[in-house]
C-alpha cells in the first residue's frame, strides 16, 4: 500500500499539486486520471522520488519516503519498477540487455541465472523473439512491453506506469492494460497508473483518483465514474467519449469514400 498525505509541490512559486492525499491499494491497479497538464506526471514523479515535494508525506507500507537516508532509499528503490511515458529503454543496449540491466546492477546471481530471469520476464510480456533486437528496431507497443519486462525484473512490490498506452492503437492499448493488470494480480503489487485514456479507466480502474489543476477532485472506482454527478469529472469523461464518437464518425465517412 502506498499512501500520500497532504502533498504540495510547486515550481518557481507556481503550485502544481495542491494538498493531495490518497491511498493506493496493494494488489490493485490504482489510476490517476486527469487532463493533460493537470499534474499527473508531477504527482507520479513525486511519489517515486524523482521530485521532492514542498511538504507532505509519502508512505510505502508505512515507510516515509521523504525522510529516508540514502542507503534505505536505495533499498526501497529496488522494490519499485517504473514504466515511463516514452518507455525509456536504453538505446545502446538490446532488449535483453535492457531487461538484464537491473539484475546486472543489483543481483549477485551468476550470468546464466540472470539471463534466465530476464528471458522469463520477456516471455511474461510475450516478447522473447525480440530479445536480441535494439529498441530502435521494434515497435512502440513492443517497446512498452520490453519496458514492463525491465520494470518487473527485480520482482518489485510497487509498479508505476506513466501513461502506459500513450501513442498506441486501441487494441495494443488494451493488451498493455491487461498485461499490467494481470502482472499486478500475479505478484500482488501495488500498481499506480497515470492515464487520460477512458478505455483504460473503464477496463482496469479498480481505484481511481481524478485530478484537476493540481487538486484532487474525485475518487472512486470504474463503476462509479459514469454515474458520478461531479461536474468536473463529467466534463472529463464526456469530453473523451465525444472525442471517440467523432473519431468513429470520421472513420465511417472515410470508409464510404
Amino acid at each position, binding site marked *: 500500500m502506498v499512501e500520500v498525505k497532504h502533498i504540495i509541490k510547486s515550481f518557481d512559486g507556481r503550485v502544481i499539486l495542491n494538498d493531495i492525499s490518497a491511498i493506493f491499494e496493494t494488489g490493485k491497479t490504482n489510476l490517476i486520471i486527469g487532463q493533460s497538464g493537470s499534474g499527473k506526471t508531477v504527482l507520479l*514523479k513525486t511519489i*517515486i*522520488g*524523482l521530485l521532492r515535494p514542498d511538504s507532505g508525506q509519502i508512505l510505502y507500507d508505512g515507510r516515509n519516503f521523504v525522510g529516508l537516508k540514502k542507503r534505505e*532509499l*536505495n*533499498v526501497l*528503490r*529496488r522494490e*519499485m519498477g*517504473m514504466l*515511463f*511515458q*516514452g518507455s*525509456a*529503454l*536504453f*538505446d545502446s543496449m538490446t532488449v535483453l540487455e535492457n531487461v538484464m*540491466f*537491473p539484475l*546486472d*546492477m*543489483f543481483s549477485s546471481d551468476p550470468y546464466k541465472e540472470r539471463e534466465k530471469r530476464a528471458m522469463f520476464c520477456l516471455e511474461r510480456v510475450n516478447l522473447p523473439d525480440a530479445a536480441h533486437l535494439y529498441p530502435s528496431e521494434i515497435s512502440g507497443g513492443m517497446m512498452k512491453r520490453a519496458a514492463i519486462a525491465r520494470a518487473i525484473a*527485480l520482482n518489485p512490490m510497487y509498479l508505476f506506469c506513466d501513461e502506459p498506452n500513450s501513442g498506441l492503437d486501441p487494441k495494443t492499448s488494451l493488451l498493455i492494460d491487461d498485461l499490467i493488470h494481470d502482472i499486478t494480480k500475479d505478484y500482488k503489487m501495488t500498481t499506480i497508473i497515470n492515464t487520460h485514456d477512458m478505455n483504460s479507466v473503464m477496463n482496469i480502474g479498480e481505484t481511481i483518483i481524478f485530478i484537476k489543476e493540481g487538486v484532487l477532485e474525485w475518487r472512486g472506482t470504474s463503476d462509479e465514474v459514469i454515474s458520478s454527478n461531479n461536474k468536473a469529472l463529467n466534463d472529463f469523461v464526456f469530453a473523451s467519449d465525444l472525442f471517440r464518437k467523432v473519431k468513429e464518425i470520421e472513420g465511417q465517412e472515410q470508409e464510404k469514400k
Partner: protein
Amino acid sequence: MNEALQRLGEYTLLMRKTLSIPTRWSMFFKQLIKEIYKLGADSLWIVIIISIFIGTVIAMQISLNISSPLIPKFTIGYTTREIILLEFSSSIMCLILAGKVGSNIASEIGTMRVTEQIDAMEIMGVNSANFLIFPKILGLMIFIPVLVIFSMFTGILGGIAASYADINGMTPSSFEYGLQYYFNSFYIGYSILKSVVYAFIIASIASYFGYNVKGGALDVGKASTNAVVMSSIMILLADVIMTHLMLT
C-alpha cells in the same frame, strides 16, 4: 556572473556524484572498454589524417618563410618538431577532438536525459552519473594520450614527406638533423600530461551539459554546441596555465 557561479556549483556537484566507487566493477569495465573502443574507432583516422597534412603544411610554410641564407636549413625540421610536439598534437588536436567527441558525448547523454533514460536509471537506484560519465572521463583520459602520440608520429612523418619536395632548398637530411637537434624528451611527457588534463575537461564538461539538459531535442542540440564552446575555452585557458607552470 551569477549564472556562471551557479553552473560551477552544479558542475562540482555532478563531479562529486560521478567520481565515486562504481556499484559493479564488471559493469564499469564493460562501459570503459565500450567508450575506449568508440573513441578509438571514431577518432583514430581523423587524427592521423589531420596530423599528416598539418605536419606537411607546417614544414612547407616554414621553409617558404625562411629564405635568408643566414638561417641554417635544419631550423625548419627543428621548428616543425617543436610546434608539433609542444602545441599541435596536444592542444590543437584536443580542440579538434573537443568538437568531435565533446558534442558526441553531450548529445548522447542529453538524449538519455530528455527520453527519461537517466530517470529510469535513478529510479532503479543506479547512480546514473557514475555509471554513464565516469567511464567516459576515464576512457578519454586513457585514450586521448594515445591519440596524441599517434598525432606526434604522423605529424612528424608529414613534415618529413614535405622535406622531399625540395622547397627553398630544404633537404631530407637537413630536416632530419633539425628533428634531432636539441631534442628534449621532457616535451613529449609534457604534451601527454597536457592531453590528460584536456581529456578530463572535454569529457566532464560535455557530460555536464548533456546531463543537465531540460526540455526536448532542440535543447540537446543547444547543449552540445555549448559543450563544445565551453570545453574549447577551458582547454585554451588550461593551456596557458600549464605552459606558464611547467615551461617558464
